[in-house]
């Protein structure tokens, strides 16, 4: 188990670094897929098979395919991504740094959380328990987030839709 954990960690972090350092955007995306597999492996180690497989279906299977779509259609390659904006880098560092700060603050008490998890025999990630928690204890936040997704979808359709005039002209 310990060995598997370290192997997976190495894989996840290594491929995450490769995402950043790859010159070619397509390679970056492929490395990101490897990263998702590493994360799914960690979920399996935590006995959360449902989360692991949903992570693969949704992120590696659907979202990354769309990423690949965009990059392949726009035909980005090594020469065209040479644009370096100093302010963009600056903003990236600040936002990344604040995300890390929040993550560290949230995981500060992780050792206490771990003892709680162990008491629940570690099967919280199985589909029955997850369904119970999601549709009983957290049903309101769950529904609100789904409405949020819906609104994003409606917005995308609205932006993508041609206006009446354009349709007449065609």
């Amino acid at each position, binding site marked *: 188990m*310990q060995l598997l954990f370290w192997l997976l960690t190495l894989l996840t972090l290594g491929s995450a670094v490769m995402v950043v350092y790859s010159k070619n955007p*397509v390679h970056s995306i*492929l490395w990101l897929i490897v990263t998702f597999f590493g994360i799914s492996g960690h979920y399996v180690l935590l006995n959360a*098979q449902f989360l692991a*497989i949903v992570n693969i279906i949704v992120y590696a*299977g659907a979202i990354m*395919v*769309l990423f690949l779509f965009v990059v*392949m259609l726009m035909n980005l390659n090594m020469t065209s991504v040479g644009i370096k904006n100093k302010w963009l880098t600056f903003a990236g560092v600040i936002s990344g740094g604040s995300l890390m700060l929040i993550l560290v603050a949230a995981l500060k008490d992780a050792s206490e959380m771990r003892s709680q998890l162990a008491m629940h025999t570690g099967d919280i990630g199985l*589909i029955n328990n997850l369904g119970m928690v999601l549709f009983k204890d957290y049903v309101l936040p769950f529904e609100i987030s789904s409405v949020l997704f819906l609104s994003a979808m409606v917005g995308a359709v609205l932006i993508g839709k041609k206006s009446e005039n354009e349709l007449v002209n065609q």
Partner: protein
Amino acid sequence: MTLLAFDWAFTIEKAILIAIIISISLVVAMYATYAERKIAGFIQDRVGPNRAGPFGILQPLADGIKLFFKEEVTPNPSNKFLFILGPSLAMLTAMMTSAIIPWGGKIELGGRMVDLQVADINIGILYIFGVVSLGVYGMMVGGWASNNKYSLMAALRGASQAISYELAMGLALIALLMLTGSLSLRTITDQQIHNNWWNIVYQPLGFLIFFICSLAECNRAPFDLPEAESELNMGYHQEYSSMKLGFFLFAEYINMFISCTVIATLYLGGYDMPFVDESQLSGITALIVGLLALFGKTFLLIFVFMWIRWTLPRFRYDQLMNLGWKGLIPLALINMVLTGAIVLFMMK
């Protein structure tokens, strides 16, 4: 050292089982090519392959040897690593899906209960979805790495088709899962054996949607747009030659075999032989009867796949997208809501 404290007998048992299942899938896929040509011949009033061996039975071997001996060409502007990764991924994902299909009940062999299923994981059918959604990468990576505009267009087409039809497939499946209450394929099969009725009786519309989506996921005609010769020369594997091309074509046949097995397991009772009470039979007879039933259903479905291919013309791209998004998805949603309402009503 915890690494060496495995249950070695268990490991060896599973390894043998995996080897058997993979060789069976390969042989079935090999002879599916032969069956396809024979059926095409029958439908078009021709003879089909009849030169190699009696009735042309050695034709797939001859084709395989031919593919191996062809010159291997890697185009100069292509991305070498990804060019090889494409067909490998296609083959890998095609092989991986067979891991959770229950091929038969448990049998006793030398004092051990041997389970004819590589892994009975509690997410069952979702695992198949995960692997199928990764199957797109073989095509996309291969098509992009070829550095050919036709290959790229075909790869993008194939991927968008797969994503669109995966949605309707998932919705059809949700309705089925409401009835079974379990994701494990073993449990779903057992329920069908004990209820006496197969799931197709409860979910006729779901079965139809699932079947159509499987056709699209396997890139079979009338959904074979990624290979539309008249528009895209030869599709995403245009630059491939020799066994790399063979892998792409072969993976398609393995996918067809596995998806037919999945349909048989989900909707047609799996290894349940109709009109036979399996519990009355002894262990080894029940096993043989079960295997015959499962393979019989699978081969029948494969025949229907081929029948459709040689009967219907190919869809146009807009027709394909209209059918997926405006036809199948609303139908699957209605099916899901109706099933949910009936399940809720029956529980009260």
